[in-house]
């Protein structure tokens, strides 16, 4: 009799999500669920939903969940993990949530070395609110609050979260992956697995940034969106591992003494 080699993981709830067709939030959800299942962590895993398109994530997993206020998921995660160190805690956050309003919380959560896993979904836009500029929006990219495209002279350049967080001295695991093709998704899962593994081993803070699509607010069909991501985001947001617990520090050293540069 035939064996099923691919189906919905147990950690993922039955039924359909509210995500737009082709939105890769769905892929990331599944990868997280598969990792949680494969590591046998489901029964003691607590997820934290952000405010963003994934605000309803609490309906899509079969684990207990918190719904955090906008940007504060890392603080909520800290509260949970300090209260119950035996639990496996992960936040699932968008780029507006984590990199804009939640910048202080993510930096300090990482710097304290909270033993949690942050799944950071970078889609270069505010999806839920209808396509406003995010800190991660690409230069020239049009959004509803930068109708002529992001002007780096007024709004600065996109923030690279994996790079930023990996410069902190406190040991951590930080990686960036993507899910716009199946093979990238395979790598993304590997990164997520390492992150949850490290947490389960109580090793360190872990963060996986995942490049994701927003066909709706990018204004292109899903397949185009995957191309747009590859062509526009990947060059600026390199994939790979930025930090592992054994790498001491990645903070840059001074370019030279004061005055020397003039």
């Amino acid at each position: 009799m035939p064996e099923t080699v691919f189906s919905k993981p147990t950690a993922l709830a039955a039924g359909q999500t509210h995500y737009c067709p082709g939105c890769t939030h769905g892929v990331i959800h599944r990868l997280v669920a598969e990792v949680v299942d494969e590591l046998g962590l489901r029964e003691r895993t607590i997820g934290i939903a952000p405010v963003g398109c994934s605000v309803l994530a609490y309906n899509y997993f079969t684990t207990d969940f918190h719904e955090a206020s906008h940007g504060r998921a890392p603080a909520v995660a800290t509260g949970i993990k300090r209260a119950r160190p035996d639990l496996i805690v992960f936040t699932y956050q968008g780029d507006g949530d984590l990199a804009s309003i939640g910048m202080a919380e993510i930096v300090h959560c990482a710097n304290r070395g909270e033993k949690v896993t942050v799944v950071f979904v970078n889609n270069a836009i505010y999806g839920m609110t209808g396509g406003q500029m995010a800190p991660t929006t690409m230069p020239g990219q049009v959004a509803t609050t930068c109708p002529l495209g992001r002007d780096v002279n007024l709004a600065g350049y996109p923030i690279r979260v994996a790079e930023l967080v990996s410069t902190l001295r406190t040991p951590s695991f930080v990686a960036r992956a993507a899910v716009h093709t199946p093979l990238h998704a395979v790598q993304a899962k590997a990164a997520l697995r390492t992150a949850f593994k490290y947490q389960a081993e109580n090793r360190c803070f872990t963060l996986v940034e995942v490049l994701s699509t927003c066909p709706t607010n990018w204004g292109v069909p899903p397949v185009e969106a995957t191309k747009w991501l590859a062509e526009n985001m990947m060059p600026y947001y390199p994939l790979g591992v930025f930090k592992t617990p054994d790498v001491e520090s990645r903070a840059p050293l001074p370019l030279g003494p004061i005055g020397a540069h003039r």
Partner: protein
Amino acid sequence: MAKKLMKGCEAIGEAAVQAGCKLFFGYPITPQNEIPEYMSHRLPQVGGTFVQAESEVAASNMLYGAAGSGERVFTSSSSPGISLMAEAISYMAGSELPAVIVNIMRAGPGLGGILPSQGDYFQATKGGGHGDYRVLVLAPWSVQEAADLVQDAFDLADYYRNPVMILGDGLIGQMMEPVEFKQGRQPCKVLSPKTWAATGCSGDRPTNIVNSLFLDPEVLERHNRKLQAKYDTMIRDEIRCAGYGLDQPYDVLLVAYGTVARVCSTAMEDLHREGIGVGLMRPVSLFPFPYAAVRAAAEKARAVLVVELSCGQMIEDVRLALEGTRPLHFYGRQGGMLASPEDVAGKVRELMRGVTKEVSRA
């Protein structure tokens, strides 16, 4: 346990520990730094955890996470820091999370000053945050009462699954008085296990979701009505107040809460010696407010004098209680200035002489 001379802040911290609270998340701010400082050395002794949050915003959201995990938890701050917790407090109320929040009020608005004040009464009782919600607010007038109310606060928070706020002023935080922690104290409420907490789901129950989002307006309306019903129960069962000298006849009823109420009590005694009959009504729960008790006590008086370390905030609740049945007068100090018994007594004498004019009707 023998009496100990303790600072209010330390007594509050110890009371939390006595109440079985093993978690504190907070951020320094005068005049309550002694609370986080006390917790930072005390909690490790009982196997608890102290975390200095990066901000009050973060602290209040850490509270959310810890409370949602079913553990007893508290934070403390002072006025500006409490303002930064407004969103999280609304979230905790919406998600029905039990947590204790201590506000050792300082003078405002803005950065203001660090001296005692009662300027956050509105913020505490009418909800500083958005939406229809309430937090249970308790105001101690002595270090011992602060310790007692903190312990009750944890029980009430758990019982109602709602944030409870201890509203004290700089004096309560900084003064030292003898405190006693009773051994084998029983919870002031019958508490049931926190089966709603998000502690991991093995599948034997639906997942527990700590959440305040209800996109369907009908569901959210039902949720709001459920919350209101809860607040109505608080109004029915949790009103606390104390009356002084209400058994003898009196011309003037003083209404005050917190440390100024003690100032009033001394003024009252001084006035009695002069043969001026004065009664004192002290609300202990500010939400729910003792409207009926205040009104009843006022009926015996010819006039009512509200004393606050603010420009007059509780007076609005007193007016709601009186509904114009008695002339209402106010004595307030601001900016960290303290009212002395002499000040209050003086105001009462003026009032008797009909010198001071009634506070204009709303």
